[in-house]
């Protein structure tokens, strides 16, 4: 099965959404059609999170301002 294209939201949001889907399935009455939609979304999120977790690069940007001098 093809995985959906990259999810364009911050890591924290995707993770939270996955937790919310997990919580949703705790309910006693679950509509199967909606459940399938949520399930697929959960797969997509998990796949995207997994990809992002594989990234080993931390970008470090040096701020050019000199903070040890009076002029800002």
């Amino acid at each position, binding site marked *: *099965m093809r995985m959906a294209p990259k999810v364009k939201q*911050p*890591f*924290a949001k995707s*993770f939270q959404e*996955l*937790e919310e*889907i*997990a919580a949703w*399935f*705790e309910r006693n009455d*679950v509509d*199967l059609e909606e*459940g*399938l939609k949520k*399930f*697929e979304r*959960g*797969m997509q999120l*998990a*796949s995207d*999170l*997994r990809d*992002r*977790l*594989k*990234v*080993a*690069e*931390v*970008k*470090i*940007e*040096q*701020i050019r*301002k*000199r*903070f*040890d001098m*009076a002029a*800002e």
Partner: protein
Amino acid sequence: MRALTVSEFLKGTNDVLASVPALVEGELSGFSLRQERWAFFSLKDEDSVVECFMPAWKLRHEVADGMLVRVAGVPQVYAKSGRFRIVVEAMEPVGEGSLKQAFELLKQKLEREGLFAPGRKRALPRFPETIGLIASRESAAYTDFVRILKDRWGSTSVLHVEVPVQGDQAVAAIVRAFRWFAVQHGISDLRFQIPNVLVLIRGGGSLEDLQAFNSEEVARAIFASPIPVVVGVGHERDVSIADLVADVRASTPSNAAERVVPDRRDVVHEVQAALEHVTMRFGMHIQARRGTIDRFLLRGGAFAQQRRVWTEARCVAMQSRITALHQQCVTRLETATRTMRNLNPTRLLARGYSMTLVRGALVRSASVVRAGDALETQFSDGEVTSIAT
């Protein structure tokens, strides 16, 4: 020569005195603050005493009678009273004892004001997108922090602000750095990544080295920061004032990296667990639904029988599709975890591989090694230096 008036005489005397450098060390005594604006005190040694005067706003340190202090200022005779005094520009405690005492006084003062109150400390975001780092790039603290950060987590960026962490420029530089981040935080400019957390770190040092981290100005800058602050001072048993004001105190700069981002390996497991949980629950729901349909349709006749077979087939198809999807995901997560583990350089070293460096650079080919070169070989548990022949 005509005689001078008293005022002329004193003015002339003060002109001469202004050229006398006054950098004096002595014991502080009789300290008093008048109307919150003027500080009066004396400086003494075993044999002598001199009066001092100082505007209160120039006081940068907490002081108390008995403390050894150093003052810089201008000697003068105060014309209105005819008394000799030093008009002090700057005063600081000197010696371990005085520094400790000043530290205790400041700590008590800030605690009374509520700067250390646990209730005001803010929680850190679990997955910060941007980290603001206030540190000196030359220090081991910086290298340790960045190394641990990269090992633990990958989806974050760091905005590094270079500051001296000791010396007389340190306090002003650190305060300006905090102020700059606060200003950026106030501007909701989408082009600029506003940090979700700030980290202030430095290595260990003497009480004098740590002065900036025990200063009132830095403490207030941390307290006023709209962004939560993590402070990590290396390998110190004693807690600094910056540590006490921080939202989170890390025990070392490396620990600061551990507090600020999660370990990706833990998060992979959490994601996997969430997925498995969802799959199991969904499967349960389908099972439950099948049971209900079964019981309902059994009451019907042949038509109902046909319906039942059709519904059951659909449920089975859905079930196997879900199982297949789940298996795919589990496999991918397992592969990802294995790959990550194997990429870890420490694991590679433990498996018998070693890294060789020549002139500080990693050697990938024998052709770059010349006879007589010093080779530094890193194993998992240490280094060996050898000379190439």
